[in-house]
């Protein structure tokens, strides 16, 4: 959903004093369990701090050129090679997003109650979207590895499936919140569902869809970078190998390349978003 702040006319629901104490106790109990379950110990954190500083210190300086680590699969593991992996990551994110947008629109039309009145289709597609979205890309990638083997194609499929669910959900929520009048007037002219989409929904929600798509592209780029860790292509494999060989300086240089990519994408998409919505703060949640 997209939320914009609005002046509060009606106060939010308040808790009764008795309820408040109970909720406070539950929250404290939950935190205690969380600390215990995650073995989080402030004392250990302080004691472990020197080790951590030593580790992160050992990553500096980044080692960009002349990597001579004799990897088993490519002897001349040069800077250029990592840049190619970075490019592949970008391509994975692009293709994953494009496929997800196309299928996301189709699912969204079927999962929007005001377009698809059939209860079975509506609930079925909604459950499908939740299923796609509820399982993260990395898990999808691990499942797809069994299907199509290792490589960037697996990563694309994983990104596409997860994001089809996510975009389908958000698009359909946006369509459901649409002004009824617009849909009615387009439908009254005898438009087919495709025509309703292109002439009723896109002109109305195009910019909103665009900001979702940009948000998910950024997200996909970040996810594409880690898919390599499970063998689904992209720059993640370089990070994995560097870490496995304790070549932390190389790992840092890979991370810096990742970071530069993410920051550039973030700035570009920020610019596009600003141009589309005129600097208005659009919150994707």
């Amino acid at each position, binding site marked *: 959903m997209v939320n914009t702040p609005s002046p509060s006319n009606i106060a939010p629901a308040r808790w009764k004093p008795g309820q408040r104490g109970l909720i406070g106790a539950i929250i404290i109990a939950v935190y205690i369990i969380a600390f215990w379950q995650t073995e989080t110990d402030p004392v250990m954190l302080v004691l*472990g701090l020197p080790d951590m500083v030593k580790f992160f210190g050992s990553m500096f300086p980044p080692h960009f050129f002349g990597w001579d680590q004799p990897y088993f699969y490519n002897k001349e593991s040069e800077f250029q090679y990592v840049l190619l992996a970075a490019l592949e990551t970008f391509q994975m994110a692009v293709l994953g997003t494009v496929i997800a947008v196309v299928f996301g629109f189709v699912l969204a039309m079927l999962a929007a109650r005001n377009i698809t009145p059939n209860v079975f289709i509506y609930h079925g597609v909604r459950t499908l979207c939740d299923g796609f979205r509820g399982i*993260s890309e990395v898990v999808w990638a691990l499942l797809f590895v069994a299907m199509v083997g290792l490589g960037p194609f697996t990563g694309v499929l994983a990104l596409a499936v997860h994001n089809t669910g996510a975009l389908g959900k958000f698009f359909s929520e946006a369509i459901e919140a649409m002004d009824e009048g617009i849909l009615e007037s387009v439908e009254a002219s005898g438009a087919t569902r495709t025509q309703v989409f292109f002439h009723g929904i896109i002109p109305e929600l195009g910019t909103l869809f665009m900001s979702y798509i940009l948000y998910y592209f950024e997200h996909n780029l970040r996810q594409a970078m880690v898919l390599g860790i499970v063998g689904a292509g992209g720059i993640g494999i370089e990070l994995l190998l560097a870490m496995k060989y304790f070549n*932390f300086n190389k790992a840092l240089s890979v991370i810096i390349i990742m970071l530069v990519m993410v920051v550039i994408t*973030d700035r570009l998409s920020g610019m596009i978003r600003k141009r589309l919505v005129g600097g208005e703060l659009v919150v994707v949640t």
Partner: protein
Amino acid sequence: MANTTIDQLDELYYLRASDRRKTQIKHASILVGILAISYWSALGTEFSVAKFINGLDNAYDFLDRSLPPSLENAHRILPRLTQTIGIALLGTTFGILLAFPLAFMASRNIVKSALICQAVRLVIDAFRGISEIVWAFLFVAAVGLGPFPGVMALTIHNAGALGKYFSETIEGIDPGIMEAVAAPGSNQVKLISRGIWPELRPLFTNYMFYYFEASVRAATILGVVGAGGIGLEFILAIKHFKYPEAMTIVISMWALVTVVDRASGYVRKRLLGSELQRN
């Protein structure tokens, strides 16, 4: 008289038509550009429908071997699920605590020094730009295996992400209120609590819940790099070819994410009431 009106309408019509033509050309060229980039990406990622269709056999085989889900590892799954929620909860809480100072220091209407602002933004970008799993990878290398590096990874990533969105919200505060706060002799505490905080609260709360939900989703897979949670069981089951167990874990991950999303949505609504208007 009548002629001029018709002429004007005519002119208007042609103007509109040429405008429409221009936007059509613009949209068409954007579409062609996107298609070209997609095609190039498809080449680069070895995308092939044939491979996908051939893979359907393998998928069938995989499903055949993994269904029905086995409950043999159920006793190990439950504690891992609570651990996953614990990682997400602590990661979000600490992230929020770290995000507040970062956000205020990164806002131009709070901090006057451009240098400090840009430096803090750089930190925020670095925290946010590196994904949770990479952070977890680094923290596992730094402090060893276990759920704690997962908490730290989520803390750092969330601090960056929330820091960015918080500071965007802060920069959107009405400048009038900011001036009133800065004015000498003003009751600053009251102005901040009555003027600024109500403006920030709805969006801040929304972001916090959103990132809690995102953290739960991320925490389910942190185990893949050894940082605790349900992902650890999943990767072990996959590596040992225990597909029925892996299937149970996937289903439980999905159930966890769905339940947390619903619960968090309920609490969010309860806390915010009608303060956030959906549009």
